[in-house]
């Protein structure tokens, strides 16, 4: 019908005003606007805020959970989720710690068998990647909801962590310098964890936007059946993103162990929620198909800045939880509203 065609033209041309001219939608940059606004307000209110050292502090705080959030972004874009990353942080960190020279614990698994630091790190990373691979395998082969599958592995791996450490902390007497560098060192004045975070974000951004596997990740999240009928390897791609996330969770766990100079059973507890919050506050939709690693970077920094600001004001941890929770709820509500507008 000619009338239908006219209606379609209106629908298509209507959003070409304002930002849409630059192919940008408000919902995609809303989180950036919030972050910039926060920074401006804080700079005015507190002179201590706008300093390079304070910025580095924020970056160091968000780096560890940020590494996980970057990987979590890809999983969420495929339409999945991974609740097991917090446990993976703990287990990988403990495994690496047990293999690093001078580590000690009451646990029977922490023996005199030690490896050079790079190898100990590799073993820890392999443990994380293996956990992610198994998550991916369970999700694709049994078609269990990712939420349920990774809830199960979260508890299972937590159990392994307790068995491995016997509940005792693993400490260093003293910590080898090259292992300490991972979490406590700095290069060109920038802390190592921040370097790691920056490299992870850049690499994952490249993978997701410039590589065929990244395109497949978006297509699978946007429309799994269309992706399958376009010849994409849906299962293999999903297993890849879960493996990558497991690997990154292990990296975060090793950095954390080095930074805290100990591996305990509480290392990484709750990290899955912090990472998911960062991703969602950044604007990546939990429905899948939309979002980006860069917006998650903005999301985790938003959480970091809020926490930093509350610290500067001397607010208690309880208040910090309340505020972070409110921001998360606001972000999710905005996502829901935007989706409803898109549908209508």
């Amino acid at each position, binding site marked *: *019908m000619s009338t239908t065609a006219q209606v379609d033209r209106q629908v*298509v041309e209507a959003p070409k005003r304002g930002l849409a001219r630059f192919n940008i939608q408000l919902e995609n940059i809303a989180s950036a606007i919030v972050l910039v606004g926060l920074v401006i307000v804080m700079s005015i209110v507190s002179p201590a805020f706008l300093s390079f050292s304070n910025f580095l502090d924020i970056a160091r705080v968000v780096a560890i959970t940020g590494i996980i959030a970057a990987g979590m972004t890809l999983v969420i874009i495929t339409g999945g989720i991974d609740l097991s990353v917090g446990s993976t942080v703990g287990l990988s960190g403990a495994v690496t710690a047990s293999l690093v020279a001078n580590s000690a614990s009451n646990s029977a698994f922490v023996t005199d068998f030690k490896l050079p630091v790079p190898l100990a790190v590799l073993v820890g990373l392999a443990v994380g990647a293996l956990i992610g691979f198994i998550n991916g395998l369970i999700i694709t082969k049994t078609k269990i909801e990712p939420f349920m599958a990774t809830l199960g592995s979260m508890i299972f791996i937590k159990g392994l962590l307790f068995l491995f450490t016997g509940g005792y902390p693993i400490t260093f007497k003293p910590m080898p310098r090259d292992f300490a560098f991972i979490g406590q060192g700095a290069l060109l004045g920038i802390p190592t964890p921040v370097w790691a975070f920056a490299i992870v974000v850049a690499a994952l951004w490249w993978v997701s936007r410039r590589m065929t596997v990244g395109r497949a990740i978006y297509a699978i999240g946007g429309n799994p059946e269309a992706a399958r*009928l376009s*010849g994409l390897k849906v299962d293999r791609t999903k297993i890849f993103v879960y493996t990558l996330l497991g690997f990154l969770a292990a990296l975060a766990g090793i950095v954390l162990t080095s930074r805290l100079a100990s591996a305990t059973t509480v290392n990484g507890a709750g990290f899955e929620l912090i990472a998911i919050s960062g991703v969602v506050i950044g604007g990546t939709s939990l429905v899948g198909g939309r979002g980006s690693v860069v917006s998650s970077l903005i999301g985790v920094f938003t959480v970091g800045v809020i926490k930093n600001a509350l610290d500067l004001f001397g607010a208690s941890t309880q208040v910090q939880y309340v505020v972070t929770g409110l921001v998360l709820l606001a972000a999710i509500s905005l996502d829901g509203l935007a989706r409803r507008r898109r549908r209508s």
Partner: protein
Amino acid sequence: MVASSTPQPLLRMEGITKSFGNVQVLHGVDLEVGRGEVLGLLGENGAGKSTLLNILNGVLQRDTGAIHLDGEPVEFAGPKQAQDAGLAFIHQELSVLPYLTVAENIFIGRLPRRKGAPWLVDWAACYRQAGEILERLAVKIDPRTIVGRLGTAEQELVEIAKALSMNARIITMDEPTASLTEAEIERLFTLMRALKADGVSVLYVSHRLHEVAEICDRATILRDGKIVNTVDAKTTSSHTLATMMVGRELSELFPKTEHERGRETLRVSNLSTVKLKDVSLSAHQGEILGIAGLVGSGRTELARAIFGADPITAGEIFVEGEKVTVDSPGTAIRHGIGLVPEDRKLQGAVLSMSNAHNISLACMSKVSRLGQLDRGAEKQAAKKLVADLQVFPPRAEQETGRLSGGNQQKVVLAKWLFAGSKILIVDEPTRGVDVGARAAIHGLLNDLAGQGATIIIISSDLPEVMGMSDRILVMHEGRISGELARKDFSEEAIVMYASGLEPIKEGSNA
């Protein structure tokens, strides 16, 4: 016209019209159902049957016209009012609650309450009353059975029991036999005869013409939103019914271009899947092969099996004379096969991605090296295809979800042009597509065939499949029930084959 069996019909619908937007679906439909009568309602897909039934049962509101029940005018604001007035609607897709018992399903929403404690369910009464209704239907099902454990036929009987428990006087059954076996159909018919004897009327929708003769008293034929005729179901031949259902001129919308038919490009021999039984076919270079048949006859399943989207249990596929193993869409694409699926939004396009990204999706290797995308080349290719296919707006970066249906379909077609498919299967390529885009899509398919591609077109739209195809295969219940060369194309022949009947070969014009 055959008059109603009783002087005053139980139900009379008069001059019913209904439009959706500016498309008029029903043009003044009159319908009568007598007491204890089984009236067949026949028509092709899209003739307006569902709309009419939805209006009768209060699901949709009519624009104009009147409905009389027992001679009294009635108004149904919603399905509940229609139910209260004694109308029951049994949909093709059953709406039983699988985890509840038979009795709970029958009385859901109005379970009997205990005297003196109305917040408690009187389970004893519930099972007893359900048992009585089932007994009246001569159905041997324990009312305590969980419905999910019953077969489809028994679930349908539960729906009928539910209708009776609400004192239904007119039961509408929309293709009740679609998923039943012969024995189950017989049982259903026995039950329908018992209902008739009790004075209950049935409005029976089916595509199976021989069933209409067996169970219906009269049959009303609907075509393009108008009543064509009402006939005596017992004395009217299936062939006559089929003629009345289609009976329209072949539209001039399909300028068929003649192509050289080249070598065989695709051969399928004895292909079987869960839904297909022993299907064999061959298609050639430059040929447009049509596949007709009713919804559910296995057309889509055939396309998906050839494309590697559904597992094959037996049979072989040959591409360009070579036997190939197509175990996934990826391998099918490598052998040059493309599929435009029947549901554009759910299976065809990724609506959240741009046109360029959708177009390159099936063959990203063309614009990438070692997994690195060459986005410049990708955009160039997309720009050209978007312009060639007259996608509106002609922008490569446009999000596909923001396009109209016809333009989305063009993007899906562009994907297979980009992938260079030599064998393109299109399943309902113009469903929900406006007239202008339809013509563009038909033109494109003709051009592709002219360039030596093999096109397989699946369509419920008979004028479309007849206008486009060089040859038509008709499917019925998972098998190919007939093959027609272009010179033998007729809607009657297709409908007969599609209903599992042999077309009547007449010396004169059939």
